[in-house]
């Protein structure tokens, strides 16, 4: 079993439509730790040692957040700047994250068609996540395709995202149980819509 850490960042969770529901879909899973960053560090004063300890204790790192300005909410940037230290995460002697798997689970306001060449956002979510891709690469982590849920503002009930919830839970479970084809997942565009394609055969209980 691989241990999964969800680094969760939503500045106003009480107003969240999708992220909250996605989180609730996985927060009862064994072997999954959810670190609610805005709740833990409301003044953005991040406990670096604690965060590094959490990273060491887990094998799969999922950044779950709304897709603000084609990226993440501020606290995740601060988290990157402070936690991913030279000599710890990268650079000379920085091997603590080597061999881990990482991906972003994001929600966007716009529809899927907006996130493509010719769409009004011009790039795919995968493309816009290029800095995360390179960050993972520099730290020796395997970077998987994002789990992206689009048109988040149109969702107002659990039923509206029932499919996404099931997909998210399935993905996290599969990552935990190591039932995922990592190479395929790395090459995919959006794990939310290509999940069947990357899942390995279900183990016989």
């Amino acid at each position, binding site marked *: 079993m691989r241990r999964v850490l969800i680094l969760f960042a939503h500045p106003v969770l009480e107003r969240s439509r999708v992220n909250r529901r996605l989180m609730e879909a996985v927060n009862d899973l064994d072997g999954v730790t959810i670190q609610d960053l805005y*709740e*833990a560090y*409301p*003044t953005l004063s991040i406990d670096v040692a604690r965060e590094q300890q959490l990273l060491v204790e887990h094998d799969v790192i999922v950044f779950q957040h709304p897709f603000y300005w084609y990226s993440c909410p501020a606290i995740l940037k601060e988290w990157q700047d402070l936690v991913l230290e030279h000599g710890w995460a990268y650079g000379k002697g920085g091997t603590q994250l080597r061999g881990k798997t990482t991906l972003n689970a994001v929600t966007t306001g*716009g*529809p899927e068609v907006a996130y493509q060449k010719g769409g*009004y956002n011009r790039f795919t979510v995968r493309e816009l996540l290029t800095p995360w891709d390179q960050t993972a690469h520099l730290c020796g982590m395997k970077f998987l395709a994002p789990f992206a849920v689009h048109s988040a503002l149109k969702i107002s009930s659990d039923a509206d995202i029932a499919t996404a919830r099931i997909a998210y839970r399935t993905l996290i479970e599969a990552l935990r149980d190591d039932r995922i084809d990592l190479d395929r997942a790395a090459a995919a565009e959006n794990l939310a819509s290509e999940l069947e394609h990357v899942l390995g055969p279900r183990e016989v209980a």
Partner: protein
Amino acid sequence: MTDSVLFQAFVYLAAAVIFVPIAKRLGLGAVLGYLIAGVIVGPYVAGFVGTEGHHVMHFAEFGVVMMLFIVGLELRPALLWELRKPILGLGGMQVALTAVLVGGAAMAFGVGWKPALAVGLTFACSSTAIVLSTLAERGLLKTSGGQSAFSVLLMQDIAVIPTLALFPVLGIAAATQITEITDVTSEAGRPAWLSGLFVLGAVVAVIASGRLVVRPLFRFLAGARLRESFTAAALMIVIGIALLMQSVGLSPALGTFLAGVALADSEYRHELETDIDPFKGLLLGLFFISVGAQIDFGLIAGDPLGIAGIVLGTMTLKLIALYVLGRIFKLDRPSRWLLAFSLAQIGEFAFVLLSFGVQQRVFSEAFASPLVAAVAISMVLTPPMFIILERYVLPRVTEKGEQRPHDKVHDDHDAPVVIAGYGRFGQMVGRILRANKIPVTILDLDPEMVDIVTRLGIKVYYGDASRMDLLEAAGMGHARLFVLAVDDKEQATAIAENVRHHFPKVPIIARARDRQHYWDLRRLGIKKVFRETFSSAYESAIEALIQLGYRANTAHRLARRWRDHEEKVLEELGELWGKDRDGYVSRVKAGFDEAERLMRDEDPTVYEDRDGSWDNESLRADRQVDAQSTETTTS
């Protein structure tokens, strides 16, 4: 009426009040101001002061004793030990060399070897009172030249003791005739070894009592919170030590100096300094005035050239001796010149030694009188000597880049931060600063707090920050920040006002007890004022929101928003407070409503509302208006 004590006091004080500020304004320094004042009120000009000036002088000499006590307070034992070489070496050589040169010159003028030696030893002494005052006044005391001068003066004080013992041997009077003369008391009948033992015992007693008696006594007095008993105790200690020293035949100035050194590490040091300082200042002023008044112009008029010869000859010889010694002891050029110019005069001990010499019949009254006049004149010439030194000599001998010879600064009060009040509030500030290795000088008026914090290994001075002289002693003159954290409202406001006035360049961070106090302090022009309970109440409110189910981040953001508004209203209320009662009340009420509106979700400025405007239809609507982008994809 002119005989009454009050009239005399008035004359001296008036002279000081009138002439000292004028002299200072003219750049001549306070010491010269006092001396000139003395000449003018003296018997040869205005005649307000007659022959009793002599007695006044003996009384006023006590100012020198007090000054050395304060000098001792500023000199930690470790530093004194560091100075042992200049004191014994430089000081000892100075006394010997000057005695030989002056004595030799006297012999050249036909004086017998006995009186010549006596005069040589007498003239070897410089004026502790004038030199230290002038050095301090010009900020030269802590320079290496100043420290050397101080070391020499200290050695001269010590040398007076054997000199006094030697005079009866040189004189033709019998040793048994010695009667009491100011500094020396009858040691007759006591064998030399016993005297030595007494001296040693007295010195040990003074040093030990500094630690064992004075500190508990001050702690006890501090608990009683009576300032005048503190002052009385400080004076009592100084006078007590002086008496003890006199009784064993040691110089009182030397004794109080040692006591000062013994107390230099004590937490009451600033307080002692501040208590003694005004007395020292007044008595020294009195002393200088009486020196001025003593100059016998009748005598000078009788033999002006002879006396001028004595003065200039002696000062030149002393100057040469000091300069040569400064070279031998490897002082840099500016320090050498400072040493030579500052110590070239003959000191006040000469008055004592000359009259003692007459009494012991080392020399005659007629022989001593012109010498007494010469001593006084040489003292008066000291401040002008400093002016010549600073204006003409130092600029020539100082290498480029340095204004004054200040290389070795012996001062542990250059901490950039002074904290007044080290209770719950000041401690927090102090601890964070100290944790960041920022030196702080701390003053507190609560003896228990001082004790507790001192036990924790933190240097805290017991002292009342409302006294500007004490703040000055604590280094406010060059502080970069003053933290005003005393808990008494009125006192804090008074201190703030004084500090703004006396140290206008030092920025203040002030603790306010409440809103009124906040406005009081703000109106004094203090920009950084913090209400003492505001931040903790603020934190509590955030925690209350979190406990009630608010997300931590939301609670913090709402509280910050509220605080920004609150601070704005506070400034507006400050304008109205005390002026417009109705306006004040309605502004408070309006503030409540504003805050409520601000917190309300509908407020368009509330951050979370922007959620709805991100990446939805409205974004695309804007894009459609944009001429450049005609091709938008909609679902």
